[in-house]
């Protein structure tokens, strides 16, 4: 019986010879660049290792113990979540408002507005970070100069050099850069609502506000939960922006986990690199992200079902 099964299986495998040829390059890359890095970062975190040769100095949970009491790690960790949740709180609803405005087919030039909102999305994040260094320059930055000219400010503000302002400034720039994506998501969501519903509402004499709260928003809840998750996940790794905007400074006020890890593992100015320690830092953050994703997924799905 068993041999029959095996020979059947072998025959089946032979029949799909070409299928295996077709998946094998992908499988090789998948193992090397997805599976191994996940396992490797866990493995490395148990070693004291400067990146040269192979990790030999096994230190158990020492890296984790050190990181858990490192105030700079928790500073970066908290900043990272402030950064991500700000996007959920601001970018997510703001993009919906913009989408509802731009979804109006009577509006002329809406494609131009949509394109302008989308322009920062396709621009290199690193270059945006650098450009804002100039635009917000405290001595001669054009944005500072303009705000003084129009009496919005009394004197120029050093947005990126201020401990209290640097993170909010980074968040505003990041929302400016990324809101176009969330806008497209919402527009796609609005298009799934059958037009007959709006026609029926109009015939029944419902006001636009009522239509919005009784038709548009309830019907957007299921797709909105997906958009919420995507907005959150995509704002968890602001390395490009933070590194070019402020390098995590001043005084670590805009430090996030990625810049923290970068400093320990790749900073060219550092004499002894700490790969194991940096891996542990990345790993702890990754675990919390996964937990949040897992916890919120069923909750949001339930909410979506309940509302519709």
């Amino acid at each position, binding site marked *: 019986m068993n041999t029959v099964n095996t020979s059947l299986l072998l025959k*089946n*495998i032979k029949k*799909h010879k070409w*299928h*295996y040829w*077709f*998946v094998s*390059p*992908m*499988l090789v*890359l*998948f193992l090397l*660049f*997805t599976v191994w890095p*996940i*396992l*490797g*970062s866990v493995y490395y975190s148990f070693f004291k290792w400067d*990146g040269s040769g192979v990790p030999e100095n096994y230190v158990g949970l020492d890296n984790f113990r050190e990181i858990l009491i490192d105030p700079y790690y928790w500073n970066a960790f908290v900043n990272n979540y402030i950064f991500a949740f700000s996007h959920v709180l601001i970018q997510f609803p703001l993009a919906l408002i913009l989408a509802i405005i731009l979804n109006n087919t*009577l509006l002329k*030039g809406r494609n*131009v*507005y949509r*394109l302008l909102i989308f322009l920062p999305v*396709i*621009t*290199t*994040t*690193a*270059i*945006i970070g*650098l450009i804002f260094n*100039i*635009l917000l320059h405290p001595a*001669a930055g*054009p*944005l500072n100069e*303009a705000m003084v000219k129009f009496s919005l400010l009394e004197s120029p503000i050093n947005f990126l050099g201020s401990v209290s302002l640097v993170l909010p400034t980074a968040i505003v720039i990041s929302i*400016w850069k990324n809101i176009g994506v969330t806008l*497209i*998501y919402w527009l*796609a969501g609005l298009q799934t609502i059958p037009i007959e519903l709006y026609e029926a509402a109009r015939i029944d004499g419902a006001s636009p506000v009522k239509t919005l709260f009784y038709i548009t928003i309830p019907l957007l809840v299921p*797709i909105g939960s997906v958009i919420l998750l995507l907005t959150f*996940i995509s704002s*968890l*790794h602001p*390395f490009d922006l933070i*590194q*070019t905007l402020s390098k995590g400074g001043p005084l670590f006020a805009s430090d996030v*986990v*990625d810049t923290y*890890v970068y400093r320990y593992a*790749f900073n*060219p100015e550092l004499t002894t690199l700490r*790969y194991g320690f940096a*891996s542990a830092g*990345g790993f702890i*953050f*990754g675990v919390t992200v*996964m937990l949040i994703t897992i916890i919120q997924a069923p909750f949001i799905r339930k909410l979506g079902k309940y509302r519709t």
Partner: protein
Amino acid sequence: MGMKKYVRNSTFHLFFLPLALLWSYPFLWMISSAFKTKQEMLMNGTRLIPKVLTLDNLQRAWVNAKFETYFFNTVIVTVSVVLLVILISATSGYALARGNMPGKKIIVIALVVTMFLPKGVTIIPVFELINALGLNNTYFAVILAEAGPAHIVAILLFMGYFANIPNELEESAIIDGAKFLTVFSKIMLPLAKPVLGTVAIFNFIGAWNAFFVPLIFTLTRPELRTLGVGMYSFFGEYSIDWTGFAAGALISVGPIIVVFLFFQRYFIEGLSGAVKG
């Protein structure tokens, strides 16, 4: 009715046009500064239309600041990443969509599960792997590290598309004597043009704009820098040359905006598909 519509439209634009200008200001600043003289930049940095137009900045950036090298590095890396991702995701997506190869289910589950795992925390093992392969400080390092993990969504896109193509097409071709490879390259792949477009434009923009990976893999080889990394080091070295900086930014950002304008349909449709499912 028509009048009312007209008034509503114009009050809207009255309010939103200034906002749109403010929104685009960083781009307007970049374009105008790239063609401004250094003197005018010092005297009148906020003015958007330069009094005197100059090509000095673009020339200085292209030749002296090595943006020519950065530009071609970026083209090589980006085109290679796009081709590699398309090749790998189209072939594997096809194999997983058609027929019933043993092991198919396990592969698909593994792909879907890892799609939700957080990325970015895994750069150290990737860096070590590239070093172990002896590829650090080569084009291949950046290309592989960019293309290697980027293909899961692309595979699932191709898989979904190929799975929906009716069997009859394939069967009639096989009866006509076509081989697996011919069916794939002559019949199936040309049918998958929309997915090809989406995968190509997403990976083109992603690879062109990449910063973290090329930064790490070109730390000791400045001549391999891509545009983003080149801008970063230019700003570190010549932080007072704002017009040169703007010219470099225009060289870096201009091409991607042009590419986007041509392929924006695929990009927008790809994003919309992500939430519609």
